[in-house]
């Protein structure tokens, strides 16, 4: 009995620490985003004079007519936001598509062979910083610096590995009998793919897609190095704190905005996520 109480208490303690650890910074960010300039450096969790000024600054920096010194960084957030949306969505579609066909081939035809498939993991075995210099050189010659196409290609290329390995697991779990049955009833190989495999693998596609979308959404290192004026959201968020001074409240507002969108997407596809994460377990 005592044992159980102790275990329970311990469990709660761990949970509380975990929640504090993850939730406090988020709450701090929310609070900060509603604070006035004078309050940015005060430790209270509740803003004394809640204001939307930071959000107005995000969308139209000139509206308030202050912080002239920061004009250089004060591009309305809409630009970086739409860039990041386009980059993340396109990179996700490309990576998931290539990943799906690669995984399907690897799963069904054992081709290009286990070792070759293993090779795709090599790109993830070095710290990304190692690639910065060569990528900058390549992208300069290809006119891809400060170009969203460059980031799309880069993100698709670096995340396709995840798509392959996530989807291979899903496709491996799909019994080949379903494909054979469809074939024998007269379906063409393409019909088998689109009417049988893709619908069944959809939770996997969603999981892989969300995973890659989030990686592209939050990527900072390459975005920082490879862009100048056409910055994505992650870079824009980092820009509010500079050598000249720090717009803490505006940055908090930008960060909040930047984290809400993945949250909304995650919520919308929640149903698929749950089936996606449990797919292999439930079927047993």
């Amino acid at each position, binding site marked *: 009995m005592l044992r159980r109480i102790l275990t329970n208490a311990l469990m709660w303690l761990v949970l509380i620490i975990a929640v504090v650890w993850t939730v406090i910074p988020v709450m701090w960010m929310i609070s900060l985003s509603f604070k006035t300039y004078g309050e940015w450096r005060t430790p209270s969790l509740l803003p004394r004079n809640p204001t939307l000024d930071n959000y107005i600054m995000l969308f139209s920096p000139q509206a308030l007519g202050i912080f002239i010194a920061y004009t250089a960084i004060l591009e309305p957030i809409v630009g970086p936001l739409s860039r990041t949306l386009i980059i993340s969505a396109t990179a996700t579609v490309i990576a998931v598509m290539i990943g799906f066909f690669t995984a399907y081939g690897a799963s069904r035809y054992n081709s290009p062979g286990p070792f070759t498939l293993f090779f795709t993991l090599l790109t993830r075995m070095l710290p990304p910083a190692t690639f910065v210099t060569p990528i900058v050189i390549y992208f300069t010659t290809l006119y891809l610096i400060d170009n969203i196409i460059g980031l799309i290609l880069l993100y698709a290329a670096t995340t396709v590995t995840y798509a392959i390995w996530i989807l291979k697991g899903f496709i491996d779990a799909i*019994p080949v009998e*379903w494909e*054979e049955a469809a074939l024998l009833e007269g379906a063409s190989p393409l019909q088998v793919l689109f*009417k049988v495999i893709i619908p069944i693998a*959809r939770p996997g596609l969603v999981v892989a897609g969300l995973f890659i979308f989030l990686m592209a959404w939050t990527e900072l290192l390459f975005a920082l190095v490879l862009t100048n004026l056409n910055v994505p959201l992650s870079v824009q968020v980092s820009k509010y704190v500079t050598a000249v001074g720090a717009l803490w409240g505006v940055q908090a507002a930008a960060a909040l905005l930047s984290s809400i969108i993945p949250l909304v997407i995650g919520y919308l596809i929640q149903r698929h996520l749950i089936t996606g994460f449990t797919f292999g377990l439930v079927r047993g």
Partner: protein
Amino acid sequence: MSSRVVVKLENVTKRFGDVVAVNNISFEVYRGELFSLLGPSGCGKTTTLRIIAGLEQPDEGRVYIEGVDVTKMPARERKACLVFQEYAVFPHMSVYENIAFGLKVKKLPKAEIDKKVKEVAEILELSSYLNYKGGRLGLSEQQRVAIARCLVVEPKLLLLDEPLTLVDAKVRERMRRELKRIQRELETTMIYVTHDQLEALMLSDRVAVMRSGRIVQMGTPEEIYDNPKDLFVATFVGSPTMNLVEGVLELEENKLVLKTPSYKYILSKEVESNIIQSLLGSEVVVGFRPEDAEVRNDGVLEGTVKLIEIVEDRKILHIKINEDEVRVFVDLLAPFTEGQKVKIRINPLKLHIFEKKTGRKLLKGVVSG
């Protein structure tokens, strides 16, 4: 080739690496026939079925469907549909969509699809399940859907790969009858793969017993059961299995005798003497089925009842005769007790004599002396 023949296999061989899964087999299946491939797992029966369906390419030999050489024809053009042991139903579609699948991919008009789906659903008693999702069905409904999906495309040939193995015993029995009824009603040509000898005997018009990639014996269920060609077929078919006693054939006082380490069984001299002459001194296995022996007072073999089992409407006595144990069927109500001494008599016409070394059948039926 006569038009009666729907499927013909000619010297088909299939290897997987070093393993010869199917070894030079040939057979024909006739129109409207239910033909079974029976054998233990790994005997090549499923591979044979998949070769007919076109899911595997044979390394040697030819496959004909309705006289056309389909050896190189893709599976989807062969009009041979296969019902799998498992995973036959698409989980993301309703039963209706599952059955309609084969028609939809052919882009048939909606009204026609609807009519056919409902017809087939009726035959397989699936009408009330049409809106269920495939993944939510029980196994027996799943198998019915799988059969419906095949029937709806009106294949020339229906292939079934152990379709009832995973279904509960009770339901399995009913579905066997159903399957046979459907087969008779629609006059579908079916090839049925199973490792369950009882199922094969109950369902089939003809059975091919396979072992290690070869067909050991082919014939009607009666032939297979009553006149097995070798020891393998004899023991594989029939439940409980045939009683076997090893020994040496000898002539003793002008009578043919089976000499085992522990006892002698006298066989008649009425057996054709030239056959006997060639068998004398050879090591043989003598077999008889549990129903071909009776317990009676004038029996020649004496033993002790070791164990009594009840199987449906009969009892099986396990009788120890010297070193050998044999099983004999008796009436359910026959008053036997374990430990009791009994005498048995074997129907001499139903004795099977096999060569011990090769398992080959030497002769069947002798008249006891």
